């Protein structure tokens, strides 16, 4: 009984994050079945969409380490994403033949995943070591520059990367073993050397990888390093005087954030089987940053929720908005509006041109209504409500282990 009472007192009711995690995991696990049942005709399409969403969630979780936990504004995060993707393109395709190496390289996906994390983290350190002494705005500008340089290098180093054409026909990742069953339309069996091709397989693997990543980042957040990040974010001088090596602490944040981005990049490249410098522009960096800020900087479930919302708006809602508008106008009997006349291009095209205005409006309104983010961390919430809740106590995160 007391255990139940204890759970009720310290459990979900006190900690909205627990509820958020449960909801996210249940929804994520049930989504394929849901799509199968309710949208069977287009379920493959939707699984692809949600699989891609996972890449952005991964990116947002990584950027959250840099921006949310360590408080370093990184405007060039997509650079590490590009580095991860190109690492896979170079190490796992026939492309090597047309480079000065004249030799195709086919390293297995899972090994490249680790290599890409390492490569991206190294670039994070190379960029961070000279620049992390800079504060706030200056660091943001330097990372912005880095974010611009990296895709340009991939574009211009055409001998190695085929320039603007990108690298295509990348290797299909495979798993040593996989369970097949009725859910993918096959008889029940354990297959060996399974090629990851079906959107369902990508989705499931992404889902598992995401859970792993969340656990790791959560561990970090509640560790010696996580505390040091928070301290450096709040007061660098005090942190240093208390024995925290601030430069190393920030470098760790940068490198770990970059490793996540490299990881996501490899996954993205493998799934798309194509990399092109166009995919890693400034808008990608900004989109991820928006996900982190709008979701709730520093809080992992918040950041995941933010990514889901922003991804859905950009990649699902906005592209369909013109069709929705056309349908709506027709259903209320104003089909005249769908015709173009003079400067007016018809409702569909008209809305299509307004897409990013709508997106901007959604962002502005959300941030006005919930400046702390959708699911904020308690810390951030406090910072924004300075002086409002004077006596707030917080739940001890180690109470469960004590």
């Amino acid at each position, binding site marked *: 009984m007391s255990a139940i009472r204890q759970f009720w007192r310290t459990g979900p009711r006190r900690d909205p994050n627990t509820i958020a995690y449960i909801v996210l995991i249940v929804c994520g696990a049930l989504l394929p079945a849901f799509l199968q049942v309710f949208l069977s005709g287009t379920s493959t399409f939707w699984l692809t969409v949600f699989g891609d969403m996972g890449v952005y969630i991964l990116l947002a979780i990584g950027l959250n380490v840099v921006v949310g936990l360590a408080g370093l504004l990184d405007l060039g995060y997509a650079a590490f994403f590009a580095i991860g993707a190109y690492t896979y393109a170079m190490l796992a395709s026939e492309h090597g033949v047309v480079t000065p190496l004249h030799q195709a390289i086919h390293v297995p996906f899972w090994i490249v995943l680790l290599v890409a994390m390492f490569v991206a983290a190294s670039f994070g350190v190379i960029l961070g070591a000279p620049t992390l002494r800079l504060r706030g705005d200056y660091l943001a500008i330097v990372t912005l520059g880095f974010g611009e340089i990296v895709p340009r290098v991939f574009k211009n180093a055409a001998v190695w990367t085929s320039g603007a054409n990108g690298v295509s026909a990348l290797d299909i990742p495979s798993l040593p073993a996989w369970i097949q069953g009725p859910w993918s339309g096959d008889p029940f069996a354990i297959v060996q050397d399974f090629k990851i091709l079906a959107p369902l397989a990508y989705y499931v693997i992404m889902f598992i990888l995401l859970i792993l990543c969340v656990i790791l980042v959560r*561990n970090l957040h509640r560790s010696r390093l996580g*505390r040091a990040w928070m301290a450096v974010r709040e007061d660098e001088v005090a942190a240093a*005087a208390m024995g925290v090596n601030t430069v190393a602490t920030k470098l760790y944040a940068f490198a770990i954030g970059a490793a996540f981005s490299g990881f996501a990049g490899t996954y993205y490249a493998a799934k798309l089987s194509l990399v092109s410098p166009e995919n890693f522009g400034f808008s990608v960096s900004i989109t991820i940053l928006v996900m982190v800020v709008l979701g709730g900087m520093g809080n992992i479930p918040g950041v995941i929720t933010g990514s889901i919302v922003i991804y859905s708006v950009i990649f699902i809602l906005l592209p369909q908005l013109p069709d929705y508008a056309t349908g709506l106008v027709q259903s209320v009997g104003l089909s005249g509006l769908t015709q173009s006349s003079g400067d007016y291009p018809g409702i569909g095209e008209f809305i299509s041109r307004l897409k990013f205005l709508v997106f901007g409006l959604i962002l502005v309104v959300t941030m006005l209504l919930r400046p702390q983010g959708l699911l904020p961390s308690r810390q951030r919430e406090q910072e924004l409500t300075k002086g409002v809740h004077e006596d707030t*106590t*917080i739940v001890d995160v180690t109470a469960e282990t004590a």
Partner: protein
Amino acid sequence: MPASRGREPADVVLRVDHVTKRFGGLVAVDDVSFDVRRGEIFALIGPNGAGKTTLFNGITGIFPPTSGSVVFQEREITGAKPHQVAALGIARTFQNIRLFEYMSALDNVRLGQHCRMHAKLWDSLFKTPAERREEQEVTERAMELLKFVDIERYTHTYARNLPYGSQRRLEIARALATRPSLLLLDEPAAGFTPQEKVELMGLVHKIVENGITIFLIEHDMRVVMGVCDRIVVLDHGEKIAEGTPEQVRSDQRVIEAYLGKQH
């Protein structure tokens, strides 16, 4: 075991040797030398702008001195980084409290133990048994320290929501968490009522009894007279007197420079 008082002058914890700090044309600290001995309560006093905090910043590596040297336990620490100084065993508090406002009191003290912890990235990522054990120990020690400075009722409160006096005490607990052998307190009693000052001095004695040398800056001369073993007086960046409270109190230059206007 209480640290013995009045040891031989040879037992020097901190030697400040001809330290000068210039900011452009301004000489904030001018050729100051003194020794802090093990186990004593040593005070640095002087009027506003005398260079007391600048000297603290010079010792702790926040603004390294322009010339001269600082030797801590026979190690040269001039120009060392603040985190290195902390790891060697010098902890400090700040004149204008610098707590991590949006971390709980407990987390502030746990952070203080950062440089005494061994968990590597790998341990933190995978919550290895060693890491869990260390976190447990760090938490227990943090609770002890909060109790030691008598603010354990605020364990889970954000630092910024603590009452003023408790914030000063939390800063001391956080500094003690780094396991220092020398504790620098920058005006620990600033803004305190006489009653609070008495309580704070009690705490200072408790810390010294644990074998930690105290080096404090104080603005109010009456406070230091009662508790300190030796005092250095700074005025306009220069050392004008050094000695026991009695010696300093009767020093003509101190009376002129520091107390002059009262007479």
